[in-house]
């Protein structure tokens, strides 16, 4: 049993952003699926107003996130890699049941394992911006003529927006579950609240896992 140490993994802004975005997304999902006529909760008009305000707020807040990711060097945590990808997939589908230790433990220089990297990158660089873009266009439907977007089809925008919604909902379910795979059920969630994660001390840090110009924030 290796020695356990506390490392400061998540900065204040990072934690704030994480929980703000999750709140926005959860409320967007609830109001969005109500508009999709799946159930009655806020009432259609309230749901629409809520969805609009939250969606636009998310767009603005996301702009801050993009700025932060690039200016602080955080973007390095999202660079995809296939190294140890197989080991990680094997761990989650088999090794975890055998009580094996994680093949890519968390480190300040590398907070995300390869599977997380590709997942979070796909989200931050593709799925979430796509959702925001289609949402913004959907919201601006009555201005399409003025924006010279006459040829755009509402069906097209709406269907992509709904597909994105389902994808995000599925991610949410799996993500929340995956946070329980730390050394204790709540250790990852606790870390995203306090910023400190308890990990096993390790002597060797792989070269490709290091961030050469990582600054303390």
């Amino acid at each position, binding site marked *: 049993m290796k020695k356990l140490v506390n490392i400061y993994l998540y900065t204040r802004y990072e934690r704030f952003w994480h929980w703000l975005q999750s709140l926005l997304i959860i409320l967007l999902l609830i109001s969005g699926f109500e508009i999709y*006529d799946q159930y009655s909760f806020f009432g*259609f008009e309230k749901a*629409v107003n809520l969805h609009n305000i939250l969606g636009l707020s998310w767009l603005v807040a996301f702009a801050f996130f993009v700025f932060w990711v690039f200016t602080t060097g955080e973007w390095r945590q999202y660079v995809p890699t296939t190294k140890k990808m197989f080991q990680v997939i094997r761990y989650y589908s088999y090794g*975890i049941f055998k009580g094996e230790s994680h093949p890519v433990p968390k480190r300040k220089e590398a907070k995300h394992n390869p599977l997380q990297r590709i997942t979070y990158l796909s989200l931050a660089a593709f799925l979430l911006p796509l959702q925001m873009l289609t949402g913004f266009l959907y919201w601006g439907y009555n201005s399409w*003529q003025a924006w010279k977007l006459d040829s755009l089809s509402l*069906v097209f925008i709406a*269907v992509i927006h709904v597909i994105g919604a*389902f994808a995000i909902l599925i991610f949410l*379910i*799996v993500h929340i579950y995956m946070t329980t795979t730390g050394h204790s059920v709540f250790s990852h969630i606790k870390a995203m609240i306090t910023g400190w994660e308890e990990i096993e001390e390790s002597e060797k840090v792989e070269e490709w896992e290091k961030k050469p110009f990582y600054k303390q924030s």
Partner: protein
Amino acid sequence: MEYLTVKDRIDPTAQPVALNRPLGLVNDPSSRIFPFKVHGGRQPYDKINKTMTILHLFPKSGDDKDAYWKGYDWTKAIASGQEYAGLDFSGEYDFIETTFAYPITHMVAPKENTLSCKECHIRAQGRFASVSGVYMPGRDHSRIVSTLGWIAVLAAICGVMLHGMGRILMKRQKEEQS
């Protein structure tokens, strides 16, 4: 609005005859949704010429028998009215069902009865059920996306539950062994 005139030919086999109707297209950017009160009427038309008729209803003086409300004679009332308007009358008339759309300055509903969003933006039979050619949030959806979407969500829930149970079971097994 498109109006039928008293010179237009009507088709008595296609009742009710629309004396006017609102124009507009679902995908015309300057068309608007607007409330109308549709007044249903039953009025005389020229059976031979197949036109609507101008009626002389109110008496101009005490012994004006051509006025319908004085003489109660439709033939006289129609003949008088048509002559006044400079139009022909065949002499034969019949009644026909008509509609006339009043813009909603007439019979405005009380505020408790204003339309809610759900009257149109609903998957079940709403007010817009028969309007095609436009996508409406709440009313329309892609069946494939909905079906596959919810199946995938269900699969994700089942997947994480099974995974979690597996971990719990294996941990218990390990503890029993040690």
